[in-house]
């Protein structure tokens, strides 16, 4: 008898075919571009470039992926990351001016940046869990508030400078892979453990699968949402630290283009916006794939707009391939079992009775007030 732990993995496995598909896609992309320009694409400098670009966007996508597990979303990730980055830079600069010892200062900067992320996450959590605003709208508003606070605080000016230790972390490479990428992998692994092997992770997944059933199972909705948005805020703060370590500067306007990209990566990685699915490693893989493509397209001298188009096509394409795959296999099974008089015309397939409808049904059925 398989254990639920494996079944939690099996749920991943429900998307396991998905994850395998992503691995295949990653390999295909790597092979394609390596063949086109082996000297450049496989050079250690290129590997360094690719792995240097992934962590910040990958972490933000991770934060969104976690929110999606609970059938939410967090649009405030970039603003939170910037606030944290600004905090780290501000503390560093002020502290160094005051002549503080840099190791202490480094610790202080990191801790305060993380605290800022958690506080922002807690604010999101209050709006979502206590006030009861839909996450997409709540974080749409807080995103502006956090960015607005950053602008008001810095008067729009960037803060330049960081403690030597943090700068060092940002520029060190190990085996031609930047330290921050290894850091990213550690965070991904930790988050994967949290989401699949702790009570919180299972509760968050259950809540995302059906909020009503979660209520009747004694899963404390508010508490789990609080933990989720705090976790997302903290991960965004780590992304902010990565940003500031990479660029040795912080500004309120940095990373505005990351938001939709992060959502794209999370979805491509296998997160379900309707909740109930954990896709941590998939998200990391999706970030890798998109960065490899970006790098390859740049290498081929194609315009960055071509990369945009490719990004959209992949997002849609992965979905279509999955759908057509399912259709094909149902069709083939039908044939094999001799069960079918004629193939069902594609347009006449019944509307998917998936989680989608299940959740709308659940929402319709829950008229309880507490």
């Amino acid at each position, binding site marked *: 008898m398989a254990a639920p732990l494996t079944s939690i993995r099996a749920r991943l496995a429900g998307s396991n075919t998905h994850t395998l598909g992503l691995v295949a896609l990653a390999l295909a992309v790597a092979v394609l571009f390596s063949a086109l320009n082996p000297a450049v*694409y496989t050079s250690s*400098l290129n590997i*360094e470039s690719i792995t240097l670009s992934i962590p910040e966007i990958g972490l933000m996508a991770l934060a969104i992926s976690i929110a999606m597990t609970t059938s939410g979303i967090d649009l405030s990730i970039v603003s939170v990351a910037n606030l944290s980055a600004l905090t780290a830079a501000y503390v560093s600069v002020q502290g160094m001016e005051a002549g503080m010892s840099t190791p202490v200062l480094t610790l202080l900067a990191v801790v305060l940046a993380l605290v800022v992320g958690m506080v922002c996450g807690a604010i999101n959590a209050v709006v979502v869990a206590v006030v009861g605003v839909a996450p997409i709208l709540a974080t749409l508003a807080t995103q502006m508030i956090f960015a607005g606070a950053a602008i008001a605080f810095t008067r*729009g000016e960037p803060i330049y400078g960081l403690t030597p230790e943090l700068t060092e972390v940002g520029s060190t490479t190990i085996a031609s892979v930047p330290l921050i990428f290894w850091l990213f992998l550690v965070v991904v692994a930790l988050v994967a453990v949290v989401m699949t092997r702790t009570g919180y992770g299972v509760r968050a997944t259950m809540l995302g699968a059906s909020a009503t059933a979660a209520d009747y199972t004694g899963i404390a909705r508010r508490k789990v949402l609080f933990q989720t948005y705090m976790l997302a805020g903290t991960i965004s703060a780590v992304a902010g630290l990565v940003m500031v370590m*990479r660029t040795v500067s912080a*500004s309120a*306007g940095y990373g505005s283009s990351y938001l939709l990209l992060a959502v794209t990566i999370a979805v491509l990685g296998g997160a379900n916006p309707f909740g109930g699915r954990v896709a941590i490693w998939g998200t990391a893989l999706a970030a890798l794939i998109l960065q490899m493509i970006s790098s390859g397209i740049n290498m081929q*001298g*194609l315009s960055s707009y071509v990369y945009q188009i490719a990004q959209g096509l992949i997002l849609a394409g992965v979905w279509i391939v999955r759908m057509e795959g399912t259709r094909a296999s149902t069709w083939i099974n039908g044939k094999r079992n001799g069960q079918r008089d004629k193939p069902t015309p594609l347009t006449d397939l019944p509307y998917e009775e998936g989680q989608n409808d299940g959740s709308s049904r659940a929402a319709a059925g829950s008229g309880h007030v507490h």
Partner: protein
Amino acid sequence: GSTGGGDDTASPAADGERRIVNVVKLAGGDWFNRMAVGNDEYAAEHEVTVSQTAGDDSSEEKQIAVLNDLIPQRPAALTVVPNSPESLEAVLGRAQDAGIVVITHEAPGIQNAEANIEAFVNADYGAHQMDLLAECMDGEGSYAHFVGSLTVASHNVWADGALAQAEAEYPGVTRVADAISSEEDQEVAYQRTKELLATYPDIRGFIGAASTDVAGIGRAIEEAGREADTCVVGTSTPAIVGNQLESGSVDVITGWDPALAGQAMLAAAEVVLDGGELTEGTDLGVPGYESLRQDPEVPNSFFGDAWIDITNDNQADYPF
């Protein structure tokens, strides 16, 4: 050879030919297309292949990504117009570590570049705009200053320079509010101008920093029928506000020729690549950059003398 629109970043250089990549703020757009024209001209006259590239929007993170992807291709030099100089320091440092020469433009104070070539001293430029505005306003009245965004450094330096000049030289000229962000959007500049006209009925001057600011300002002024009693000065190009210069809703635009700025960067890059050194008085062989001034405090910072004032009378001379 070279083209605009960032279409051929890595076009293979003819054997032995030096390859330089020009990384600009945003792929496409008149300004950088004009810079690409300058690149082309330069490439035609020198033993060098030049291409231009950029991110798909004018964000620093995309620019960083583009630079990151370029480093492994090891061009001889990168000429960069940063969206945010501070954010680019680290990646430019990586490029230098990989043996690539880095020349920047519009990035005063940048550290990880062999040289930063400015068309002019930014604060002086702001002061110059104030001179133009004050002259138009007869030294009397209030004005508002638009910047593309509160996070664009050069725009804010210009705004500060203009304000300092007004305080020093034109006691009758006052600014009505903090610098106003147009979000690099003509429509926003237009809206804010209407609000300013309503809120400060006797406002007489406007300065715009983003190239579309004056277009939006001018449109609002035209609609309000205030062409005659207001003065609009700002950084822009005839391609954007030619009509409004004609109608008088915009009075003077200032700027510099991106084609020449691009060429100046290329020339500077070649000086460094050839083992030379940029110093006070270096002649880059590009109009306006014939005698560079070096910043005494920031040795890699050089200024040309390349600003231009464009009015309706001379706009035909500047086809960009």
